[in-house]
């Protein structure tokens, strides 16, 4: 049965070739598409980020939780806001634990084999469902009529109600 053995050896060859190609593809690219759509650069030089992002994150988290320092440069929330799109093109939610490994952090972490527990607590994608009422800043004029001297009017109250509604729609 020369034909069959030929086919067999062909198959083996093909498998080998596929394996080789697999090796060539080697290191997968992290999913940088969402970030690149928003910015040209990371918060630190790219090479530095590859090596040291964990240091920045771990330092910043203690500064925030213990000392109340709220700078944005090394904030985990900001990494997620820039690096992760809340949904894929088909509308499905992007999560760190997804099989697809297209979440920015898992796209590299699954390859390097470092497990992250951060997303057991931290949101792993930007918030989509809005929490309508509590997003406005004290300094903004939508907040409680910050002007101390002007006596508030009933119309101010109406205004407050309206601006809150408007925020709910836009966010």
């Amino acid at each position, binding site marked *: 049965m020369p034909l069959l053995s030929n086919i067999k050896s062909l198959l083996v060859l093909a498998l080998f070739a596929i394996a080789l190609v697999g090796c060539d593809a080697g290191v997968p690219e992290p999913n940088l598409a969402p970030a690149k759509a928003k910015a040209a650069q990371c918060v630190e030089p790219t090479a530095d980020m590859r090596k040291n992002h964990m240091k920045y994150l771990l330092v910043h*988290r*203690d*500064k925030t*939780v*213990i*000392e*109340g*320092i*709220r*700078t*944005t440069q090394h904030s985990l*929330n900001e990494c*997620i*806001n820039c690096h992760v799109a809340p949904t894929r093109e088909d509308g499905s*939610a992007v*999560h760190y634990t997804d099989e697809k490994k297209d979440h920015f952090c898992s796209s590299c972490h699954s390859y390097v084999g470092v497990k992250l527990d951060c997303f*057991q*607590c*931290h*949101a*792993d*994608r*930007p*918030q989509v*469902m809005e*929490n309508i*009422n*509590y997003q406005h*800043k*004290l*300094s903004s004029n939508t*907040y*409680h*009529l*910050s002007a*101390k001297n002007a*006596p*508030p*009017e*009933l119309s*101010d*109250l109406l205004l407050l109600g309206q601006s809150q509604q408007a925020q709910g729609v836009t966010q």
Partner: protein
Amino acid sequence: MSQINAYRRKFMAAVGGVAVGGLASGVILRSVEASDVPAKPADQPVSNKVRWGMLIDINRLTDGGVAMVEACKREHGWGNDPKSRPEQQSQWMRTVKVTDKLTQHSFTLPVMCQHCEEPPCVDVCPTGASMKRADGIVQVNKHICIGCRYCMMACPYKARSFVHESLTDQRPHSPRGMGTVESCNLCVHRIDKGQLPACVEAAPNAVIFGDLNDPNSRISQAVKTLGGSQIRADLGLNTGVRYLGL
């Protein structure tokens, strides 16, 4: 009219149970003010010059604090964890109904972390996760919390909860996760930006928030004149949350 007079006036109105018409509504509206929480530069640490406190006037809380609890749930996303039984759900803040057995007089008040100056939950924590920030806010540093729940046992106010299940899509500004303890943190993420806690915003007529260390703050003035009782004052914990009308 000075602020304190304004406050006294509307407090008297509340005690008298009378509607005072046009003037009073203006006064009431002003009871939550922008200046209560001055914005701190983002890169500056919090300092112990400040001690955050809250004065809750129970007579003015017509709903007994339900709106405050709802606002807290919305802000932090607790209370609706899909797999937990009702008694396992987190509860950062709850309403408690108190009835005098003899007179049957009853009232309802919101209870959450009282932000003690001498917090028992901090004393018992084996890892230092249960902590008091320099500005008096008592919170859990979940990064080092091991979920032992000693703090839940130690708290006389039953203010802390434990998360029993894995969660997704938490509020980005309020991370919560399985195996750690959590409680009211006075909305640190808002205070640090110069915003009021969510519950205070939800009850602007009944709550004053501010710096107890600043003798000129509205809350200091209010507690100085009107008092403000602590729950279980006998424990000597010197709470940051005070009540009027207890």
